[in-house]
């Protein structure tokens, strides 16, 4: 027995409603939520503040930030408004990030849950596939898929979604294995409950905490992957993307470095927000972390 458990005075079980409060007590949780709220606000207000297509030429090219009050972040080499690009880019990043993460969540959770629950050959086979997907460099894989299917929002989302799930599958499998032999599940099996029912009703709800944390990290890395693809020229040509803006700005790096810099900062903020939120969620959902930290 460790001294910590011996020493801990019986804590009053925190009510479930206290979760948000616990999240808000952590600096990472607060900052993450605030930043994310800001980005969502930016994405939501884009069509109101910048009703025109951000890919249109609106002013003279190479306006530096602050040079013209109408274009606070300046214009790029095609005379496109950078601020408008960043606002509309937020929509694309969040959309692709959220949907791709959902695809990964679906595949990863299903694979992990089935492997962990059924064990044996099913487990071995599913883990082999998971290993395979972990071996193929995920970014290169996504890149090949997008290159072959032609870049568009659905193909990009799909490519990111089906290459990002292996680590989640492993995580869910480990959690399910822990629960699989627990009393609750054994009792349900004894009562003759169906496998699907047990997995959905008894096992998955108990693995929710790590899944929620992973979800926020998955969205963050999906945003990173999307911007990387766009940077290489594999973005949807019909919409503006932060990564694509950096890629375009690269051509004029020697003279007008702000064009590549500003959208990059937007990516950093978005990814940082989601990672911070993930950290905060992790601490808030893990009762042990409360004392360990």
């Amino acid at each position, binding site marked *: *027995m460790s*001294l*910590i458990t*011996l*020493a*801990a*005075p*019986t804590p009053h079980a925190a009510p479930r409603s206290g979760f948000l409060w616990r999240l808000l007590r952590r600096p990472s949780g607060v900052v993450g939520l605030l930043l994310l709220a800001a980005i969502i606000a930016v994405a939501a207000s884009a069509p109101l503040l910048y009703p025109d297509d951000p890919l249109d030429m609106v002013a003279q090219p190479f306006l530096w930030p602050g040079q013209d009050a109408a274009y606070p972040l300046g214009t790029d080499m095609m005379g496109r408004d950078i601020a408008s690009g960043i606002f509309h880019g937020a929509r694309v990043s969040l959309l692709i990030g959220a949907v791709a993460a959902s695809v990964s969540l679906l595949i990863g959770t299903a694979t992990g849950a089935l492997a962990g629950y059924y064990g044996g050959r099913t487990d071995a086979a599913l883990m082999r596939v998971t290993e395979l997907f972990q071996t193929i460099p995920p970014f290169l894989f996504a890149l090949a898929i997008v290159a072959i299917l032609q870049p568009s929002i659905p193909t990009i989302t799909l490519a990111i979604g089906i290459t990002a799930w292996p680590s989640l599958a492993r995580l869910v499998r480990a959690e399910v294995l822990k629960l699989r032999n627990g009393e609750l599940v054994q009792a349900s099996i004894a009562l003759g409950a169906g496998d699907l029912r047990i997995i959905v009703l008894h096992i998955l709800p108990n693995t929710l905490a790590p899944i929620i944390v992973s979800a926020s990290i998955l969205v963050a890395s999906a945003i990173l992957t999307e911007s990387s693809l766009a940077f290489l020229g594999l973005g949807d040509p019909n919409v503006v993307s932060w990564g694509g803006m950096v890629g375009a700005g690269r051509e004029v790096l020697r003279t007008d470095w702000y064009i590549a810099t500003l959208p990059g900062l937007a990516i950093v903020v978005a990814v940082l927000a989601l990672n911070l939120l993930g950290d905060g969620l992790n601490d808030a959902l893990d009762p042990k972390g409360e004392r360990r930290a």
Partner: protein
Amino acid sequence: MSEPVLQVRRLNVGFASRGRVTPAVRDLSFSVKAGETLAIVGESGSGKSLTAFALLGLVPPPGVVSGEAIALEGRNLIGLPEKRLREVRGARIAMIFQEPMTALNPVLTIGEQIMEVILEHERVSPRAAKARALELLAQVRIPDAERRFHDYPHRLSGGMRQRVVIAMALACAPAVLVADEPTTALDVTIQAQILDLIDTLKREHGTAVVLITHDLGVVAEHADRVLVLYAGRKVEERAARDLFAAPLHPYTRGLIAARPRLGGRGAVRARLTEIPGTVPGLAAMPDGCAFAPRCPVAEAACTLALPPLVPAGTGSVACLRVGDIHAAEPERLSVVHA
């Protein structure tokens, strides 16, 4: 006999949280002489392990240690800076732990781990430290010490690992050895061997032993004195023989009554939880005697004020009803007065 090598006076250990300290061990005083074994007995949560860690200055945060003194060979360890404390630990006061399976570093050989204590405290050559480590392995009866020296812990059984932990603890011939439930995690047959080993080494080196346990069988066989801890306070402390012959505190009586009398050594393994009820939580300590809610002979007065420790025979006891109990059972009284 000689002066006590370890004297603890009014030791307090608590847990700090949000500016408040919740006490877990309160006003605990005791002393141990060279070559003597003092057993500290109590249920889990009684504060006995915490006391053990306090003796070595190893109570982790948010634990707070205060009090008058933990005097080891005349030097007060309370308030000693970490640097000085470190020099004492392992050298003058050493510890054996409950879990031999996890007490050793899995990536260092047992030889390296024993040599480490010696090299950390004494100015000797690695060669001399190795010779001493081999000697220690032989002393703790590890066969084929030369070969075992290079083994990693996972190749050893639990009993063998505990012998290695004992060898590490005794490497610098400490004045005091603290053994925190040293046999709880071991097989019954191994338990007796380990305790006998501790006894033998104690006699050879004149080490004072503080034995933390909940196993009364162990206490009866190996302790000279017994200190009974309940909810962080000493309720009774007496010579082992007297305590078993005539327990005074109702709690001690309960413990002894709950213990199965199987006789055979090692077979006696009573858990101290067989008295109805549980130890009150630290945060919800009653005003009076902490045992009162579970006590069969408690009366109104017991719940009002803390019963003081009063001398009784070869030690002391803290119970308001102790006189009445004696009156009811005169045949036991004679032992106390003998």
